[in-house]
């Protein structure tokens, strides 16, 4: 990686732009190679190397008797993902959960953002901004614990619903979706709110002057303008939900997600765990490539 970045590729100063001193002079003793050498050695040498080795392991086999990993080349592990109906349905279930969590987050983040940015008084806006950010710091497991306490058998939710004769979802796939939404919602809410705040007020005036009602203004003015923010938020809600398995483990009852399968195989059968971890990578990469041209990645 480092060797492919020769020092000559520095941009020559352009005449059209305001005069700029040569970048080399401004960075001091470290040139581009000097700046990138250490981080790239780390990211490529540790991280990318590990990802590649994981991919390689996915083609290896496990000795069924000693459960020792044997190098080789087989597509069997990948075939398993498609042939084993439990594995296939787990992949599809996980994808469905991740999409549902993303949809729910958008559904709540947009009204919240509109309220905060355009209706709430300045003091209320400040309070809400803190209120939405705060749970982000409260701790991942703390929040799973909180959902567990809320939805447990003799817990708050069932107590609240008892007078209505309704019993809560207990520990099930519904609770997994709710918990993941609970966990990742701020990642959607904050960029959406920021984007709505940045919409110039006169656009709303123009829309209203031309006779659009509130719903129409939201649909034709607000939504198209906050699309990049929604996409940026969805990268988090989608990717984070896709790889999660502790929510499924602690509030999901018998619900299995891709992560559950990887985690339960990592010690017994590393090649199948490796093959299975390619599934979320493929989902995320397809998603990232899909949204890349929208320019949303530059905002991350």
């Amino acid at each position, binding site marked *: 990686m480092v060797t492919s970045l020769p020092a000559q590729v520095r941009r020559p100063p352009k005449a059209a732009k305001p005069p700029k001193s040569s970048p080399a002079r401004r960075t001091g003793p470290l040139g581009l190679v000097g700046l990138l050498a250490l981080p790239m050695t780390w990211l490529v040498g540790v*991280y990318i190397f590990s990802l590649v080795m994981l991919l390689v392991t996915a083609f290896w086999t496990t000795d069924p008797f000693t459960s020792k990993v044997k190098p080789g080349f087989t597509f069997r592990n990948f075939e398993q993902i498609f042939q084993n109906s439990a594995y296939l349905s787990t992949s599809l279930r996980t994808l469905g959960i991740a999409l549902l969590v993303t949809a729910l987050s958008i559904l709540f983040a947009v009204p919240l953002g509109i309220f905060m940015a355009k209706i709430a008084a300045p003091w209320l806006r400040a309070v809400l901004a803190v209120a939405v950010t705060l749970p982000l710091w409260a701790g991942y497991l703390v929040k799973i614990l909180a959902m567990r306490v809320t939805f447990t058998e003799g817990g708050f939710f069932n107590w609240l619903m008892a007078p209505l004769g309704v019993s809560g979802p207990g520990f099930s796939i519904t609770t997994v979706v709710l918990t993941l939404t609970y966990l990742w919602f701020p990642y959607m809410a904050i960029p959406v709110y920021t984007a709505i705040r940045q919409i110039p007020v006169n656009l709303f005036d123009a829309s209203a002057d031309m006779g659009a009602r509130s719903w129409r203004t939201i649909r034709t003015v607000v939504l198209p303008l906050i699309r990049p923010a929604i996409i940026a938020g969805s990268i988090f809600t989608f990717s984070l939900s896709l790889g999660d398995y502790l929510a499924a483990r602690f509030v999901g009852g018998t619900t299995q997600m891709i992560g559950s399968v990887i985690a339960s195989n990592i010690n017994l059968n590393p090649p199948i765990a490796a093959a299975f971890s390619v599934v979320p990578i493929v989902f995320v990469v397809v998603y990232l490539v899909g949204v890349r041209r929208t320019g949303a990645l530059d905002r991350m």
Partner: protein
Amino acid sequence: MLRLSRPAKIGLGLIVALVLAFLYVPLFLVVLNAFNGARIAAWPVTDFSLRWWEAAFTSEAIRLAVLNSVIVGLGATAIALLLGTLVAFALQRYSFFGKQTVNLLVVLPIALPGIVTGVALNNTYNQILEPAGIQVGYFGMIIAHATFCIVMVFNNVLARLRRLNPSVEEASMDLGARPWQTFRFITFPQFRSAFAAGGLLAFALSFDEVVVTIFTAPPGVDTLPLWIMNQMARPNEASVVNVVATVIIVASLIPVWVSQRLGRDVTER
């Protein structure tokens, strides 16, 4: 101004109230259950007691877990501060082939699911380094955490560097300052608060991380999240975990307060 009809405003207000309730009622229940004398979290709470607080503060396991989390967090943050700042400078000061790729490479460790990072590093540690006679042990965790913390520092520092006025540095150079002096006295003070904010975010991210940690922690070593997870996995989770969770919830106010202050620091300039 966005003109909304009265029913639309009320509807939006109700959604906001629902979202706030959804965000805060579960956390409130955890805090309440920390004072629940019963062994298992329940509702309504009938027996208020401080016995779990006493148990938490005298627990050697919790003390060790906190210590591990702090050591790993500080180690990972130190590495992330160095690497994240270097990449931010490279991307802001130079234009080169593969710039997008480098950017993607930094974001990748948090863009990919944690379990993939965890399993990949676990695979490298156990199937490649260990047979080669290299035991990463405790450092495996720090290496893993540093990898996904780089992006936090990178994002903050890069955003600040983009807003800096290059003439200030040029003036420093023109006045005869050496490159190192310019960096030390001119450049660094200008992005110091972003550097600190990035470090804080990196530490918070590391302190909270559990999925990658599960796969990279050496046997028998618990970070605080691992300790919480093991408690939750027990059939009758002792209420002491609610006490630890409550302390984390209260402690989470600190980074919010600090980042608000750092944010103000920026706008005042």
